[in-house]
């Protein structure tokens, strides 16, 4: 079912992205940054999607540690993978913007450094989950929980510490400061969220099918033992 639905959902999502790009193309560039500010229409939604992935990984990890249910672990892994994917997009698009806006690719300031460490935490989560061997689910869940607990500090780091990164107030202030930038930003965020849901469904389906294979192997081994 999912195999047939997946390409259709991806095609619908592609149409949404094309619509978002049309919006982005029509909106005027920002006055101080110029054209490079248009990277923000993909940079901000990618971090929103990453935080969503982290939230799913965190809830799944708590759920798994509390109940030991395999579907909780599968949800956590799916969330963790998507957090790494969208975090990578954020970590690459950010320096591309910074090269023009700040004159450097990277600054070791509070926001950028903690964001990189957060992303590496979820890379570690997936590494433990993949190569940790039997029983690594609990250790991975603890790593996922740690990453989830750290995430709010990364988000608020621009308000807590002195940093060159734009503050968290930029987005909530957008309707007042630049109302013409709201439709492209919302269209882009909506496209990213739909993509996130489609990829999450596909990854959960993959987890279910992998669990089916494991059960079939165990049943076969029991029968032949």
């Amino acid at each position, binding site marked *: 079912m999912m195999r047939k639905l997946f390409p259709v959902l991806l095609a619908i999502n592609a149409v949404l992205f094309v619509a978002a790009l049309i919006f982005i193309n029509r909106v005027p560039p920002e006055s101080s940054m110029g054209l490079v500010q248009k990277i923000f229409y993909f940079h901000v939604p990618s971090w929103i999607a990453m935080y969503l992935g982290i939230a799913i990984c965190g809830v799944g990890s708590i759920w798994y540690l509390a109940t030991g249910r395999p579907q909780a672990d599968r949800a956590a892994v799916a969330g963790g993978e998507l957090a790494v994917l969208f975090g990578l997009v954020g970590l690459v698009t950010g320096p591309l913007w910074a*090269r023009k806006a700040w004159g450097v690719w990277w600054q070791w300031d509070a926001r950028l450094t903690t964001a990189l460490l957060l992303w590496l935490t979820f890379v570690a989560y997936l590494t433990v989950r993949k190569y940790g061997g039997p029983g690594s689910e609990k250790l991975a869940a603890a790593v996922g929980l740690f990453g989830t607990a750290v995430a709010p500090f990364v988000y608020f780091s621009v308000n807590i510490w002195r940093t060159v990164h734009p503050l968290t107030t930029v987005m909530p202030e957008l309707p007042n400061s630049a109302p013409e930038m709201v439709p492209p930003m919302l269209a882009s965020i909506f496209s990213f969220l739909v993509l996130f849901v489609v990829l999450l469904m596909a990854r959960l389906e993959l987890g279910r099918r992998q669990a089916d294979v494991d059960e079939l192997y165990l049943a076969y081994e029991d029968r032949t033992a």
Partner: protein
Amino acid sequence: MIKRLATFVWTIVLVTPLFALQPPPGQTEFRPMTEVPPSEQLPAAPLVITAYAFFLVAVLFYVWTIWRRLNKVEADIRALERTAKRTAP
């Protein structure tokens, strides 16, 4: 008189290239400018296009990995089902 004039002309002819070949004086100070001229500015379009293209490539790569893993799992399921049928009592 003519001799003096010739000496003067020859002096000009010989000395002028010496001054002309001198390098310009070194910069003694830096003076900030208020605005970078457009020819000196880093173009933004390649950065924007790279950012959008990277997103597209990353998502397509992830979709491809899911597709590949799903195909592998389904091949495993089919192989196990065939083995189970063959070895069924």
